[in-house]
């Protein structure tokens, strides 16, 4: 049995205690929140122990509803999570929240401020984890994918993922969750913005938050027009438009109903299973990419080959031919037969 001590991986709640892998797995199974928190940290730090524990603890019978909240900075995503989760908490649901904010591309530091808006969900049935993007784009980070899986394995029945404040092309969230809510606010634009591809295409539900602000009616009219225009998504679902005032909780019941009926739709059309399959496929692909990156591209043996190809191209070699040959040698590995 391998022994792992956290003093080597650095800080964190349990770092002082030399806990072995088994201990961590046992605590996780016993419902210890520190064990969940620690496994998430290991995953975030890229420690192989994290992913290997996730694989061990993964339980296909444990399935959570995954809800994504995305939208521009400041539209009220965290405030919505707060009201949404506090309603679910009263219904005795167990809720996991992953809240993502951006890392600085310059210092790698981050200000994770979503919890400030989540003051009403401090009960023991809610678990909130703030994460930084740590260099990834798309409004999510790869560790956020795995963290969602960790929370699912822990037994949360609902998992809410709040992306960073996104732009028009950040659409990765739709792959991670079952129901994507695109959150908008009044005066975020008119029919011209709605027609632009990307973010506006991924909504299963459009949430117009800050419905107490002027301009709401005009915007909702435009948005509803737009939704009619796209008629239905390719799968037959017509995304509803829900108005909310997140800080008072107004409209939240309707949002919860919309999420439920989308879930019903996914179950009925078997799309829920399709989504899960696509997710697993995506995870396998990502694993493959990371292996390629770490074990091939960053390895010393490959660097020698790459440098040689660079030099040949600089001195007039055929770039495409070099690229093809390099790719073939990289795939063949360090010691081709």
């Amino acid at each position, binding site marked *: 049995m391998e022994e792992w001590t956290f003093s080597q991986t650095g*800080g964190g709640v349990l770092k002082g205690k030399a806990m072995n892998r088994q201990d961590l797995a046992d605590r996780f199974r016993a419902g210890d929140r*520190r064990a969940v928190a620690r496994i998430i940290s290991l995953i975030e730090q890229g420690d192989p122990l994290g992913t290997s524990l996730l694989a061990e603890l993964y339980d296909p019978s444990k399935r959570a509803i995954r809800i994504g909240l995305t939208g521009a900075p400041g539209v009220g995503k965290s405030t919505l999570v707060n009201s949404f989760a506090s309603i679910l908490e009263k219904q005795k649901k167990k809720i996991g929240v992953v809240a993502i904010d951006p890392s600085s591309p310059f210092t790698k*530091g981050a200000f*994770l401020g979503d919890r*400030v808006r989540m003051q009403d969900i401090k009960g023991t049935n809610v678990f909130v*984890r703030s994460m930084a993007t*740590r260099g990834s784009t798309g409004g999510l980070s790869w560790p956020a994918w795995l963290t969602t899986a960790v929370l699912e394995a822990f037994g949360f029945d609902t998992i809410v993922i709040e992306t960073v404040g996104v732009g028009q092309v950040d659409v990765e969230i739709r792959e991670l969750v079952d129901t994507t809510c695109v959150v908008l606010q009044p005066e975020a634009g008119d029919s011209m913005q709605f027609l632009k591809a990307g973010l506006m295409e991924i909504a299963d539900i459009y949430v117009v938050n800050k419905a107490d602000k002027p301009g709401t009616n005009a915007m909702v009219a435009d948005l509803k027009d737009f939704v009619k225009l796209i008629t239905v998504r390719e799968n037959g679902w017509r995304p509803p438009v829900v108005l909310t005032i997140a800080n008072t909780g107004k409209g939240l019941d309707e949002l919860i109903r919309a999420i439920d009926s989308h879930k019903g739709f996914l179950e009925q059309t078997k799309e829920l299973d399709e989504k899960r399959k696509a997710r697993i496929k995506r995870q396998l692909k990502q694993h493959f990419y990371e292996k390629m990156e770490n074990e091939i591209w960053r390895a010393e043996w490959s660097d020698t080959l790459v440098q040689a190809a660079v030099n040949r191209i600089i001195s007039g070699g055929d770039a495409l031919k070099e690229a093809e040959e390099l790719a073939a040698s990289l795939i063949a590995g360090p010691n081709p037969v």
Partner: protein
Amino acid sequence: MAEKIIRVLLAKPGLDGHDRGVRVIAKGLRDAGMEVIYLGLHQTPEDIVEAAIQEDVDVIGLSSLAGAHMTIFPKVIELLKEKNAEDILIVGGGIIPEDDLKSLEDQGVDKLFLPGTTITEIAEFIRSKMDSRAA
């Protein structure tokens, strides 16, 4: 393997409603390459410890200007001990009288920063503590 990034929880316990000071520190630590999880105002010791556990932070930083430091710091330390998490570094800042300073450090606060301390000093303190632990 991705690198370890220091995670710091910042909160402002107690009743007073100004958090400009904490926000300045939050920005400073962010610029020093740390991930700062900000909890906001009026946090109870229970809120702080629970959030520290969920977020698996390395450091808890509390700002206290309203004189509540003699109750809040010891309570946070007690709760961390209860949860077996007393290895989280605890630092604080604010206007704290000399006598209290000594007493709090005796009770387990790792470091109290008095007004006038630069962010660089705070960041360096945290980093050196983390380095000596990782070694």
